[in-house]
């Protein structure tokens, strides 16, 4: 395909196959080798660039999504003779050692400062969590970012609210009827009606780009649904929050309603990968790849969400628990799109939680994930308990025995401990079973004991 885009402030024309990585276009086609490849799987951040104002890993961005985009790479900042203030801070504070992670780290720091002029140390840590460095121990990098922030670097970055411009493109002969970039749900559904059986849908592409690198065959036909405004919207309607399937994690956790009413959902979105991934990965992708280790399924199950699927023949709403049929399979028909989900606004007497345990703080795949939601009446009796776990089987599932045990009981310490034991007994993961059973039980107990403690504190007051 042929298309135009803006690179470091200049309009350029690109000719590329639709799934070619932005990283390869930069390095091999355009000779901009400042952007590095450290893993090719979206894990290390060495290839991070800023696209339409957002930090992304360029190994995760296929050409099909590039028409009309604004991309900023390390070459678009300063030069060795005239480094920009952030780059100067990096060198002078000792944030550069071997230099391989540096270009990505600089882009991540710039993005952080564009969003937050004066980040504290924890915010800097969080902002750089998707960029691995093996040399520095990060301390000097934090100092460089602090210094640039102190010098007002963030204020100098023009806020960039790039709307996804349609971006014109031209397909080659053999790409016609194979590559689709619709701009409305109706357009997408019409295409699916004819080509649904062979089409692979693309949104955040954080999963498929890894699979392609590791030997997956290129799909026969592709449809990029990331440019459909309806699918990226988040809105409050009739006591439920509707989240479009192409909403990215960073849009989800920065949404005010999510922040005020869905702390569990916010946590899940925050703990998924790191910033580079959160700016790309979508809710729909996380649900429809149907990985048992995905973070969103358990939390949406516990929150009682519904999935909305649509085709040209109409819409259907199903409980999110019915979305998956097995390992990496769903109920979606070839002509359907997951438009989004609806999550009921929780009642005021409810509590919710999402726990994830990987092997490190960020950028980790869950070994245990647990979501809990309970409603308790004023007498301390449990009305509606909902618990779901990920990583423990072919799909995420709800802990029915635990829910049955808790429903209608008064929440006491004894009940919390018993509940933990029941939860432990309700899961049977294949790998490291004792550990994961134990942690599952501990987390259920921790959640319930936390609620009791909160209640006790209130009573004391």
């Amino acid at each position: 395909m042929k298309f135009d885009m803006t690179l470091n402030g200049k309009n350029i024309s690109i000719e590329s196959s639709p799934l070619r990585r932005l990283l390869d276009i930069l390095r091999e086609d355009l000779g901009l080798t400042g952007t590095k490849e450290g893993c090719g799987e979206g894990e290390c951040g060495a290839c991070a660039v800023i696209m339409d104002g957002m930090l992304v890993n360029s190994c995760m961005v296929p050409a099909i999504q590039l028409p009309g985009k604004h991309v900023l790479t390390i070459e678009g900042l300063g030069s060795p003779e005239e480094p920009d203030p952030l780059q100067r801070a990096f060198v002078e504070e000792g944030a550069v050692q071997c230099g391989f992670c540096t270009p990505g780290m600089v882009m991540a720091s710039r993005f952080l400062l564009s969003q937050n002029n004066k980040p504290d140390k924890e915010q800097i840590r969080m902002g750089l969590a998707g960029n691995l460095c093996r040399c520095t121990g990060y301390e000097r990098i934090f100092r460089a970012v602090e210094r640039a922030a102190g010098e007002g670097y963030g204020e100098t970055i023009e806020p960039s609210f790039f709307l996804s411009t349609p971006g014109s493109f031209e397909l080659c002969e053999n790409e016609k009827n194979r590559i689709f970039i619709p701009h409305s749900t109706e357009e997408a559904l019409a295409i699916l009606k004819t080509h649904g059986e062979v089409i692979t849908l693309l949104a955040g592409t954080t999963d498929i780009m890894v699979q392609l690198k590791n030997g997956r065959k290129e799909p026969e036909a592709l449809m990029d649904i990331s440019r459909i405004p309806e699918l990226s919207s988040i809105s409050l309607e009739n006591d439920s929050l509707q989240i479009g399937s192409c909403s990215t994690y960073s849009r989800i956790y920065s949404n005010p309603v999510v922040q005020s009413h869905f702390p569990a959902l916010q946590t899940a979105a925050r703990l998924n990968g790191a910033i580079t991934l959160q700016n790309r990965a979508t809710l729909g992708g996380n649900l429809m790849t149907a990985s048992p280790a995905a973070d969103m399924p358990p939390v949406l199950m516990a929150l009682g969400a519904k999935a909305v699927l649509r085709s040209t023949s109409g819409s259907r709403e199903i409980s999110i628990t019915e979305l998956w049929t097995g390992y990496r399979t769903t109920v979606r028909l070839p002509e359907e799109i997951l438009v989004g989900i609806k999550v009921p606004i929780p009642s005021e007497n409810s509590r919710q939680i999402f726990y994830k345990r990987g092997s490190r703080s960020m950028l980790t795949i869950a070994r245990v994930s647990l979501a809990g939601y309970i409603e308790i009446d004023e007498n301390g009796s449990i009305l509606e308990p909902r618990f779901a776990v990920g990583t423990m089987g072919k799909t995420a599932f709800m802990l029915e025995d635990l829910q049955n045990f808790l429903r209608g009981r008064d929440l006491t310490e004894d009940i919390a401990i018993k509940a933990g034991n029941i939860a432990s007994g309700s899961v049977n993961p294949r790998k490291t079973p004792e550990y994961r059973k134990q942690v599952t039980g501990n987390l259920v107990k921790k959640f319930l004991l936390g609620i009791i403690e909160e209640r006790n504190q209130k009573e004391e007051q």
Partner: protein
Amino acid sequence: MRKTTGKYIGSTLPRPDGWEKVTGRAMFIDDISFPDMWFGRTIRSSIPSGTIRKIEMAPSFNWSRVTVIRAEDLPGPNEVCMVENDLPILAEEKIRYCGEPVILIAAPGKALLEAAVKAISIITAEEKPLLTIEKSLEGKKIIYGKDNVFADYAISDGNPDMALEKADMIIEGTYQTGYQEQLYLETQGMIALPVENGIEIIGSMQCPYYIHRAASHALPFDPENIVIKQAVTGGGFGGKEDYPSVIGIHAALLAMKSGHPVKMVYDREEDLLVTPKRHPSLIRHRTGVRKDGTLIASHIEILLDGGAYATLSKVVLQRAILHAAGPYRIPDLYIRGRALATNTPPCSAFRGFGVPQSCFAVERQMDHIAARLGIDPFDLRKKNLLQNGNRFPFGQEFTEGENLDLVLEKAVDLSDYKKKRTFPPKTCPPSKKYGIGLSLYFHGGGFTGRGEEKIDGKAKVRYVGNGLIEILVSSVEMGQGATVMFTSLAAETMELPPSMFKHPQPDTSIVPDSGPTVASRTTMFVGRIVMDACLNLLEALRSAVGKWHKAENGDIIYSKGLFSTENGPLGHFTEMADRFLLEEGPLSGFARYVPPERMLWDEDSFTGTAYKSYSWGADVAEVEVDMNTYEIKPVRITTVVEIGKVINEITALGQVEGGKLQALGYGYLEEMKIRKGKFESGHMTQYHIPTSMDSPDFHVSIEEIPYTGGPFGAKGLGELPMDGGAPALVSAIENATGLSPNQIPVTGERLERLQRETHNETEGASRDEV
């Protein structure tokens, strides 16, 4: 800020290589291309042990478009020479580990290369592999030499068996450490270019002359027609010490046969699965102590899993043994170490080079002794510190009591260890358990024994005109700061601004062999040689200036960049040097390593001066452990090191912090899983290193007690921070949880299992009592 010596020593001068790196202009190997360049790939065994029966090449593929090389096509000996010559360039018939190179392929494009790789299959007959240290020792299957032993050394001092009998208590411990991957952010890579009657190899490396030696051995060219050039190198940590010789030869063979430049850059998965890692270890301690905590005797046995080939295992083992007793006074002692062969990917160099393993074991042992005797770990260490006049177990006199005591006391003070050990700080959330622990360690600078004498490092500095002086050494900048170190030393020595100096990436056709960039030797040894070379250049110039001005040499004064006589200035260095180029020819200074006197090492008896100097360190780690999820979080680390002299302050701090985070990762996070001889952590989603969210707050203090043999008093630093972090962390975990892990990494799974087992044991014990 530190007080500088002269103008630049100890300063915070920014690294000269920083500007190109931070702007994306630095050219790493994968950033470099040549016209008509091909791409190369290695096809590897998928079994750990067996024989190659047949290579099947799909007839449907047009093989004339690509270059294929097998063992029988090699133009020279099938050996990558390192310490031994046992590592084949390509496996001939026998397969000894999973991932062993069998076939090389190069093609003009990546897609064609991919297709060619898919059109080849290796048919093998699998044999039962030898996978563990224990099985290797058993010797039922022999895969190396006559007993699977790469190296076997022992140190004996006094009569430990008799002394153990006199002990009030004998405390035993078994300690295990796992693989660790260097995980330099830039994967390994080389480009080879065919040149007339020879070959040029460019790539990511630590040791240009190692590759030169290996290529000269394997390829049919005169050594002077083999040129090795370093590209900007994205981290090494030991991982680019010996393995680049393998890739360099592979790329060279493909370039020779295809007639094209050939680039081989490893994908992360390939790099993770086949390149050498830190040796796993199994270490046993038996220590005899008096009730008051005095150590009287010790018996230490070290076993390292070397993998399928010898690589550098022998040398790693030597260092492990020499550091195994820690900085403690133990009158009667016996240490034996062996490195063993298994059908697993060969292990080799990684920052610390055997010391992180033996340091983990001895520091944990000290904690166990302390716990058994009811003494605080700090007091036990303090009581048993080596004292001036004592000897190391290998006979070398210990003279740095002041240094050792300083790091321990200062780390304890700065961290408020004593108070926190009794009263945990209130900052720890109630849902987590807080713990604090310490470790004490040291690292011998430079090569073991007579290694520096064998290497005989050389350096040259030359004036190239335009006010520019090149520092020509084979020591590379790989992120550690060699460039800023060399330029600072040279600038200080020659009293000229650092901007006048360049440390170009080594090219073996230009630079003398200053030795490999390993063993914390670059500042201490090569830095010193560079200073001598600078002085020699100045001397040559001074003598010319004297000749020009008809003065005796002694009458020419050089100070602050200016030549003068008693009667007044003659001219600036640059002016004089330019004149020298015009009138006298090339202006340079050369120097070589000068061995210190009275430092003898006997490798057969393993006694004498093992290292020319030692650097010292102490860590205090503080952790929070979530007992619901078994999540371990290092929250704060206090490190005090004594390194003689700081050459560049931010670089030194960066070395300590970066090394320390690797050491912490080694302790609880980094796990290279292996199953049936195959590494399973082939992705960065599987082999986890610490992120910015996992790094603790660092509190680092660098102490200076100048060492007369080093440049401006400097000793080695690079590896030291890697040695102590893991035991301090595990000690803190023990303090937090009451559980006592003896195996690293302490993953959540291991901690949970330990809790379960400890709980069961206590239950069992209490039942017995009833």
